[in-house]
């Protein structure tokens, strides 16, 4: 497409053309109306003047006869800038007046005529337009009075010229303006297209330039940038997941395979095979569990779970999850205390919040050792409480805690601290809790419980107003 063709196709240019046409039509209409009105006014003035003169002259004729009329007309005709006069006898012979020649037949009709004429003192060929009235006097005489129309013509010409020029000006300026504006917009749109093309080609780090004018193109660009930000984040997450899957699922898969090979090589009895197969099933169950957790995290992070959000009392979840884990804690010699008087209204995915909290409680039970603590210390406290516009679901233990510098890291997928390697687990519990908190426009906080860890899922409190978009 040529540059001009592209320019003509733009919306801006088409709009410019439409506006231009509308304005030009408007200008033509305005000027036409003005010209028509002026002409009407002038014509009206002329007819009034001529009528008055005819009334005056016919009065003179009535009082003093043809002689007096001739004298008066002669006197008036000689004045500079005078009207046109002609008095004729019934034979058609001119008696007095300042009209040299007339278009033929004008004198034969009484009433108003527009005609060409020449004054007596002018040479041949210098003919003008005039508006005349022929009046029949008693006694066969005819009186013609008229006014030159030059003034009217001149005005008409001025108006027409002004019209022509102004329309030409409007068209030229409009086209130039439209061209200029369109090119400006087009240049920015072209730049945006160019950037998006490089981004589509794979450079996800690219961003659209923002002119800083705050206009609609800027708003569009910043929205697109926000979208790109999100896409980049998702792509990054996807890459991380793939990397982690590659790393952390391949390890148990390798182990699985090795075990099968070892069984084929070394097993002697049926019992050996049975043991190997059972170990294989156990290992694959672990793999399935890890895989499910990964899928759930991915789902929470992609925001899909936002569809089935309902309003519920988080205190109830705390009580339920606490009750689910209480026997387990008890068996380990830990006291699991629940403090959730409620209500703690939250809008979200009940199942996911339950699972996130269950992960925290599970961790607390896993990492707290009753023997290391003396009496009162072997307690895990699960609470739900309001704090401003947030609902805090907290699990506080007196276990080893997490060192300050490690707190950011443990939320990442598959990160397990050295001291926890011996415990079973996928290393995904905190990642899931964090992903669930983010899904609900909240956060996962890891705090010092002095000693121990206080893990808090902070969620927005559901009120009469809807959950704000994160």
């Amino acid at each position, binding site marked *: 497409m040529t540059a001009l063709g592209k320019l003509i196709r733009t919306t801006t240019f088409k709009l410019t053309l439409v506006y231009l046409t509308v304005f030009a039509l408007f200008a033509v209409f305005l000027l036409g109306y003005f010209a028509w009105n002026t002409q009407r006014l002038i014509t009206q003035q002329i007819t009034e003047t001529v009528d008055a003169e005819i009334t005056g002259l016919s009065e003179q004729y009535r009082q003093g006869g043809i002689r007096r009329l001739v004298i008066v007309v002669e006197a008036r005709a000689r004045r500079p800038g005078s009207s046109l006069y002609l008095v004729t006898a019934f034979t058609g012979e001119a008696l007095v007046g300042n009209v040299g020649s007339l278009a033929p037949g004008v004198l034969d009709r009484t009433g108003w005529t527009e005609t060409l004429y020449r004054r007596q003192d002018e040479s041949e060929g210098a003919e003008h337009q005039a508006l005349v009235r022929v009046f029949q006097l008693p006694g066969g005489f005819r009186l013609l009075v008229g006014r030159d129309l030059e003034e009217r013509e001149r005005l008409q010409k001025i108006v027409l010229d002004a019209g022509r020029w102004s329309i030409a000006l409007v068209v030229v300026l409009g086209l130039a303006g439209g061209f200029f504006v369109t090119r400006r917009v087009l240049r920015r749109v072209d730049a945006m297209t160019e950037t998006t093309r490089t981004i589509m080609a794979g450079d996800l780090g690219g961003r659209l330039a923002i002119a800083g004018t705050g206009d609609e193109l800027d708003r569009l660009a910043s929205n697109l940038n926000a979208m790109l930000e999100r896409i980049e984040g998702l792509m990054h997450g996807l890459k991380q997941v793939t990397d982690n899957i590659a790393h952390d699922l391949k390890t148990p898969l390798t182990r699985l395979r090795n075990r099968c090979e070892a069984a084929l090589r070394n097993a002697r009895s049926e019992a050996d095979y049975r043991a190997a197969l059972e170990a294989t099933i156990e290992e694959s169950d672990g793999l399935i*569990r890890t895989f*499910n*957790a990964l899928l759930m995290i991915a*789902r929470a992070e992609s925001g899909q*779970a936002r569809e089935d959000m309902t309003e519920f009392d988080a205190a109830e979840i705390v009580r339920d999850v606490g009750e*689910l884990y209480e026997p387990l804690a008890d068996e380990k010699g830990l006291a699991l205390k629940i403090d959730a008087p409620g209500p703690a209204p939250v809008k979200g995915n009940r*199942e996911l919040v339950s699972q996130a909290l269950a992960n925290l409680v*599970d961790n607390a039970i896993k990492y707290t050792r009753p023997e290391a603590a003396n009496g009162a210390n072997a307690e895990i406290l699960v609470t739900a409480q309001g704090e401003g516009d947030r609902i805090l679901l907290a699990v506080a233990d007196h276990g080893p805690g997490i060192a300050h510098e490690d707190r950011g890291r443990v939320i990442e997928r598959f990160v397990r601290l050295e001291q926890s390697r011996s415990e079973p687990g996928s290393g995904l519990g905190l990642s899931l809790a964090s992903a669930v908190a983010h899904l609900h426009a909240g956060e996962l906080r890891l705090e010092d419980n002095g000693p121990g860890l206080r893990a808090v899922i902070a969620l927005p409190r559901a009120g009469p107003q809807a959950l704000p978009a994160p």
Partner: protein
Amino acid sequence: MRLLIIEDDHDAADYLAKAFREVGHVADQAFDGEEGLALALDGRYDVLIVDRMLPKRDGLSLIGALRASSVETPALILSALGQVDDRVKGLRAGGDDYLAKPYAFSELLARIEVLSRRRGGRGQETLYRVGDLELDRLSHRVSRAETEIALQPREFRLLEYLMKHAGQVVTRTMLLENVWDYHFDPQTNVIDVHISRLRSKIDKGFSRPLLHTVRGAGYMIRDGAR
């Protein structure tokens, strides 16, 4: 029990059919939605096992069509989609149970048996009795050998579910789903601890235990004498 397995993966379907025959059930197979629907429509099966993604007609629409023609054969949906909302969609479409792939055969078997007995089951009864253990669903009382046993509300529901399916294997996941209404994996086996608590309340001090652990599958409540 007559089963119909509607699953387009021949290997998986053959494996299932073989495994069901080994435990004494009759299992027919269909490999796409249309064939499955045609077979299921005559209603002579006890339970349908329906894969969710099938050629020609997907599992949910198959079940919908069955229910529309008043065939109420219980259907268990098998699906690779294991999220809660997928589950909800499956159950809303007329499925009676939902199991995410991959699954243990023991889990599937336990669920199928529960489904097959559901129609003639004990859903309407108000008093469950296993041996000398009694559970009154109306007054929420439990007693064994005429001695009243005090249970926590959740323990009561746990026992109620087990007794409702007395003589059948009940898996940990089934308990988690039906007693706690959770559909996630709680990592540590919390259910075992709840069961051992319940066991200490109903079986302790009696020579004949009623609550049994079924190795590799789950739990079962039954009168050992029978």
